[in-house]
């Protein structure tokens, strides 16, 4: 099967380090949300929690598959794609089970898109962002159409004033806003670093160009000096300064001078 270039690029050896990072990030995020769900359930905010645990287990499975694919270097693109799809599905599932449109978890999509942007490329980021929009939209439409049951949000379940809710919500916001901040800041850092490297390279090229010009000027000088000798001496010969000259010798002198001048023309054309 042929993948679009932007996807194929993701599995290239140069991007392995990023794929490995995505697996670490995947385990970290799954663990964080697992603990968040345990805490929320413990605080009485989440009446229905088993589907959420199941979603996290699903994510852990796909994450492990992605890890194995990298370790054995087979089906890396497929396993990583499945892992990202699992992210979006578990996120949408978690949003659904925590209240659908009124879920406080909506911001998790931002984490996904920013980490994909950091680790992959423009095309993949747009694809993942578009998929997130489509999945969330599908969920909203299915709930609206009554195909999926509308579930209560933790906000309505426990009341906004609950201390437990506020603590968990603050922790959640810190991570869910903190992660995209970290990822985007890292992206900007990488871009800045690349820009600096390019500037440095540019400076080196300008410097090399200057050296080349200086070298050429020196070469020109070196070449014009002997040509001056050839032209001058042949003028001296034909001018009779070294004794009487025959017409044939004068003719030969003209040719010497013409050749020297055409050599000069070549130098000017090559170097100017």
């Amino acid at each position, binding site marked *: 099967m042929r993948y679009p270039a932007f996807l194929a690029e993701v599995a290239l050896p140069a991007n392995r380090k990023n794929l490995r990072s995505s697996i670490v990030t995947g385990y970290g995020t799954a663990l964080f949300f697992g603990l968040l769900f345990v805490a929320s359930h413990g605080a009485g905010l989440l009446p229905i929690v088993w589907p959420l645990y199941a979603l996290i287990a699903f994510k852990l499975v796909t994450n492990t598959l992605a890890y194995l694919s990298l370790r054995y270097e087979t089906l890396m693109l497929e396993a990583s794609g499945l892992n990202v799809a699992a992210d979006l599905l578990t996120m949408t599932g978690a949003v659904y089970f925590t209240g659908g449109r009124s879920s406080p978890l909506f911001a998790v999509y931002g984490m996904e898109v920013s980490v994909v942007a950091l680790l992959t490329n423009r095309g993949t980021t747009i694809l993942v962002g578009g998929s997130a929009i489509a999945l969330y939209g599908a969920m909203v439409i299915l709930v609206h159409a009554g195909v999926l049951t509308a579930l209560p949000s933790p906000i309505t379940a426990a009341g906004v004033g609950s201390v437990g809710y506020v603590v968990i919500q603050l922790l959640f916001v810190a991570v869910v806003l903190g992660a995209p901040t970290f990822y985007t800041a890292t992206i900007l850092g990488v871009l800045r670093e690349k820009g600096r490297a390019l500037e440095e390279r540019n400076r080196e090229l300008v410097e090399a160009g200057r050296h080349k010009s200086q070298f050429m*000027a020196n070469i*020109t*000088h*070196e*070449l*014009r*000096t*002997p*040509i*001056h*000798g050839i*032209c*001058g*001496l042949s*003028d*001296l010969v034909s*001018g009779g*300064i*070294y004794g009487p000259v025959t017409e044939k010798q004068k003719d030969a002198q003209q040719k010497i001078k013409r050749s*020297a001048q055409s050599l*000069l023309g070549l130098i*000017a054309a090559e*170097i*100017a």
Partner: protein
Amino acid sequence: MKKILVVEDDPVNASMLRDYLEAYNYTISVAASGPAGIATFNDEKPDLAIVDVLLPRTNGFEIKRTEHGKKTPIFLMSAIYKDIEHAEACTRTDLQAQAYFVKPFDLERLLSHVQLFIGEA
């Protein structure tokens, strides 16, 4: 006899200028470097100096700073290709050299300048 000092590090060019100007009865001394040129210039007090500006060690421009140099016509010559405008500006202002020749130059043009500044030998 009018004396001309040629300061030129290229031996072929130096002997060519010597032969040419001697054919017009000038007395020629040749120096192959800047320091030698300045020494000869001060010893022999020539009527005119023709100096290559890219000499080894000392630049040809130095000669103009000596006591005798201030009242002697100086011609500069060089094979520097690009910077003719700059060199010409120098001959007119700072250095007060009287002419600038870019190699390869026409010997008759040099001779006409020589005759213009110090007359026939």
